[in-house]
Every structure is written in structure tokens, then in C-alpha cells.
């Protein structure tokens, strides 16, 4: 197995197996927004509606599975996007 594939598999394992057990505490910015009273400035202000909000795959009842699925999908999607970008911005052969 190629060395780069091992890292991709590690990414998929993290997305599938670790992401459902992520801490649900607010992150640093959310904590500050809550404590300092400006969290509501962001409520209902979303400009777009994303297909998989909050890393929960819609329609999947089981919460662990919904997060896992979203994680794996996002990981593959991100790989594709960055790979595609790489193809566009690579060094041109002379």
C-alpha cells in the first residue's frame, strides 16, 4: 500500500470513528460569543443553506451514524476539491 494512501485511510478512520465522539462543548469563539453576549448576532443570519448542516447527515436517525456519514463524505469531498485544485495550479511542464 502506498504511503500516501495510509494517510488517507487515517483521515477516513478519524472522520468515521472519532468524529461522533467529538466534544459538544462550544468552541473558543462560540464560548466568547456566549459569555460576552453577541452570539445572537449570528442567529438566523445564514446567507446560504448547506446540504449537511452541523456535520449531521440529514435523514439518518442514528446520531453516531449521521455524523460518521457526514465525516466520511466531507473527507472524500475535500480530497476531491484539493486534488482538483492541485491539478489546476500545478507547475506546468516545459
Amino acid at each position, binding site marked *: 500500500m502506498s504511503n500516501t494512501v495510509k494517510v488517507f485511510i487515517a483521515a477516513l478512520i478519524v472522520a468515521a470513528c472519532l468524529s461522533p465522539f*467529538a466534544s459538544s462543548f462550544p468552541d*473558543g469563539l462560540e464560548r466568547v460569543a456566549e459569555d460576552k453576549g453577541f452570539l445572537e448576532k449570528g442567529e438566523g443570519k445564514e446567507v446560504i443553506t448547506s446540504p449537511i448542516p452541523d456535520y449531521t447527515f440529514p435523514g439518518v436517525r442514528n446520531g453516531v451514524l449521521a455524523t460518521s456519514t457526514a465525516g466520511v463524505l466531507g473527507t472524500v469531498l*475535500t480530497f476531491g476539491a484539493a486534488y482538483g*485544485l492541485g491539478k489546476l495550479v500545478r507547475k506546468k511542464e516545459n
Partner: protein
Amino acid sequence: MHIPDGFLDTKTWVSTYALSAGALAYSIKKSKEVLEDKLIPKLGIMAAFIFAAQMVNFPIAGGTSGHLLGAALATVLLGPVSGCLILSTVLVIQCLAFQDGGLTALGGNIFNMAVLGVITAYLVYSLLAKVIPGTTGRNISIFLASWSSVVVAAFGATVELAASNTIPFSVAFPAMIGIHMLIGIGEGLITVAVVNFVEKVGFVDATAKSKSGVKTNV
């Protein structure tokens, strides 16, 4: 620290979009000079790994969590130009597909994490890795580069929130910096562990690293 819609006023989000567009244009130009074909899969895989790792929030003190930023990780392994492109890709996917970070705040989020975070990681790492020798020295340099990248990115967010009159700078600064100095410790530990892991499996060879602009053979 993904800023949602509603936190930044128009002048701030337009300015940060312009700054990020400039930084991305520069990265793309540079990339076309240095990015070799064999590095393209690594660009994709590093972005995928950072996306996955960013989902895993770890608890820190006071009912707060943090997650990996990955700016130092990408920069140490693949250089600042690829680092900026990788982080930007992750942020765009998170914003469009997962509602993580607002569309109006995307310029700000890219500027804080993919530009400020990457530049800070690059500067701190390339300065320290020269000064502190050996494997331990390299790990210390990676840790401090990671820690600083999170704190400086948080500083960027603080300035943008204050410029938007969302929160006064004097209130935001100690709160944002304090919390991200803690989150930065997690960033440092994870980055050191992941860099050592991916180098052990042979993800990046030395030539690739020197060509991407990061000197690690010190």
C-alpha cells in the same frame, strides 16, 4: 474559530475577502512555479486529513472545546503555499457543504486561518527549526509554530469582530486570546504527533519538503 454570518459588518467582510483573494492569487501564482505532479495527491490527502481532524473537538477548560486548525501541520509538511491552498479548500467545503463558518465570513475565516495561521506557522517554524537542533528541537519548533498559528489566527478574528463593532476590542482580546492559548496547546500536541506519524509512514520525502520552501533538514 469559524466566524458565522452576522458577526462581521459589510466593510469588514468585503475587506477580508479582498485580502484573502490577494493571498490566494499569490499562492496560485507561486504554486504554478513549484507544485510538482507527484505532490498533488498529497495536497488532496492533507486537506482531507485536516477536514476530518477539524471535526474532532477536544474539551478544554471551562466547558469549552477546541479542534485542530491544521495550518502548521500543512505548512510543516508541504510548505506555506500548499498550506494556504489546503486550508482554504477545507474552509470553503466546510462553509458550503456543512454550514460551518458563514459565507460572508469566508473571506475573514480564510484570512485568519489559511493566511495568518499559515504565515505564522511558517515564520515560527523556519526560524526556530534553525536555532534549536535535533529531533527534539524540531518537535519543539513544530509545537510552538502550531501554538502561535492558533493564537495569531484568533487575534485576526478578534480584530475583525472589533472592527465590525460586534464586541469592543478590549473585551474580545483577553477572552479570545486566553481561550486560544489553551486550544493552541492541543494544536501543538496533535500537530507534533501527526507530523511524526505521517513522516514515519513516508508521506513526504525530504526533496519534496525542500522544494516546497520549508527547510526541515536542520
